[in-house]
């Protein structure tokens, strides 16, 4: 065997081993990116966008943010040292199973379906997309207190939050709905949240709802919105 051939074979073997080690050994679990159910990142709203929609604490209470991940944000409502409730907003895109319980919901809050889970937890599904939940801690909260807290979230702005996926649909809807005027979704950051200061007007809300419906069709039935 010629010397060059043996070197070539040796190098090939080493390269094969290195590549094999990379793909076979559990390095991949350390690589960043992705979401729980392997939904593409851009389809899930980042937790940063959700933080500002939490209710403002009343006098004597403090709101401490405890977790912020892709599609999830959680805070503790504290009175002095005692934790009164866990407040959270999650994007149900990563947990589709949690959406089903709202199907049988008989009650509503601010127009969105409301569900009770056990004695201490109330959940609201906003815009068929965001689950807002209040879980009483410690001494617990009454049903009315929980509902009051749910209502204190900025639900309008939450409903108007658009993940990047809906933007395409939004631009398509825009062609159909000229009422959107100069609003160009491309010109805005990838996660446009409408600040509480500029609540959507009625016709913009209608356009947004059309966009959401279009986005829903697009993702659920896999047929492009007409």
């Amino acid at each position: 065997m010629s010397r060059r051939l043996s070197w070539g074979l040796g190098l090939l073997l080493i390269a094969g081993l290195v590549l094999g080690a990379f793909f076979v050994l559990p390095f991949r679990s350390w690589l960043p990116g992705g979401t729980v159910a392997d939904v593409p990142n851009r389809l899930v709203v980042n937790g940063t966008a959700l933080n500002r929609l939490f209710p403002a604490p009343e006098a004597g209470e403090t709101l401490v943010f405890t977790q912020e991940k892709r599609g999830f944000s959680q805070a503790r409502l504290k009175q002095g040292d005692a934790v009164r409730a866990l407040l959270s907003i999650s994007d149900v895109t990563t947990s589709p199973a949690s959406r089903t319980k709202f199907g049988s919901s008989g009650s509503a809050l601010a127009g969105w379906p409301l569900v009770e889970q056990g004695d201490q937890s109330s959940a609201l599904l906003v815009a068929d997309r965001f689950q807002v939940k209040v879980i009483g801690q410690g001494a617990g909260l009454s049903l009315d207190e929980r509902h009051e807290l749910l209502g204190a979230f900025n639900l309008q702005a939450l409903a108007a939050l658009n993940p990047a996926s809906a933007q395409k649909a939004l631009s398509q809807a825009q062609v159909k709905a000229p009422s959107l005027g100069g609003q160009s979704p491309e010109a805005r950051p990838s996660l446009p949240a409408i600040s509480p200061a500029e609540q959507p007007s009625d016709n913009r809300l209608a356009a947004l709802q059309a966009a959401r419906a279009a986005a829903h069709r697009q993702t659920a039935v896999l047929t492009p919105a007409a």
Partner: protein
Amino acid sequence: MSTTVLERLERLPHRNLTVLALRGISTLVPGTWTNITSAEAMIHEVLGSTDPELTRQVRDRADELSRARHEGYARALSLYDAVNRSQKAAGGLRVLANVAGALPLVKRLTLFTPANETLQAADLSLKVAAEMLAFTQVNGLPGDSFGDFGASLTEYTSEARVRMAALVCFDAFLPLGDQALQRLDGLLGRVASHELRQLPAYVGMAPLIPGRGDQAHLSFLRRSVDQWVGWADGFASQLGLTGQRTVRALETTIGPWHGGFEQLAIFLDAFTDTYAHTGVQAVARRLVERAAAEI
């Protein structure tokens, strides 16, 4: 990756030296610490309900979350494990050195063991940095936000308070004396990069520490310790933590101790897993809180 966080929680010991040491230290910290080793009990506590169907849903979601690679819960545990392994290895070596020091033929072994204060300080700083990295993994705040870490340390709940007390007492006051926190920065200033590399935990953690090269890592460690010392100092003086009180608290559960503080620190390093034990409990709680919110 195969065992989930909640399975790890259920495998924690109910009663051993680690639990006794933690129970001892918890007498110094108001707010009772309970050794929760049941996933169900934790879910019931967070959810405020014992509904079996809800419990099952939370459990399933928590397992799914801890298996998801980038969610960080499992990664935080591997950080704690790395630190714990290193602590045990170093502790075991020093126990050996203590024994060997008394035997004439193998006396020279003591020369090879990392027993000096500088390394102890570096070890403590690694634990603090691991705490910070694990915190960001679990709670998802961006890379090296020192301010958030300081603010959230004060928000740590029952397990974490005992956890911090154990860190302050076992890794600072016992081995370094009551002025440990004031001396820490000076001690860290003397750590050379080759000494840092002697610590097994550092080798495991290095890829996760922001910055490139040992010097950058060292400055990260000093910055995170800086942030932590400010808080730990207030915490220790508020609870009146000292080496003497630590020993007395431990004696209530473990039994009388006649050796020095330093020996007790080595003993605890070698034979207890307080850091990983409370770490699993703290991560499991955050995980259950998230799962309960997402079902």
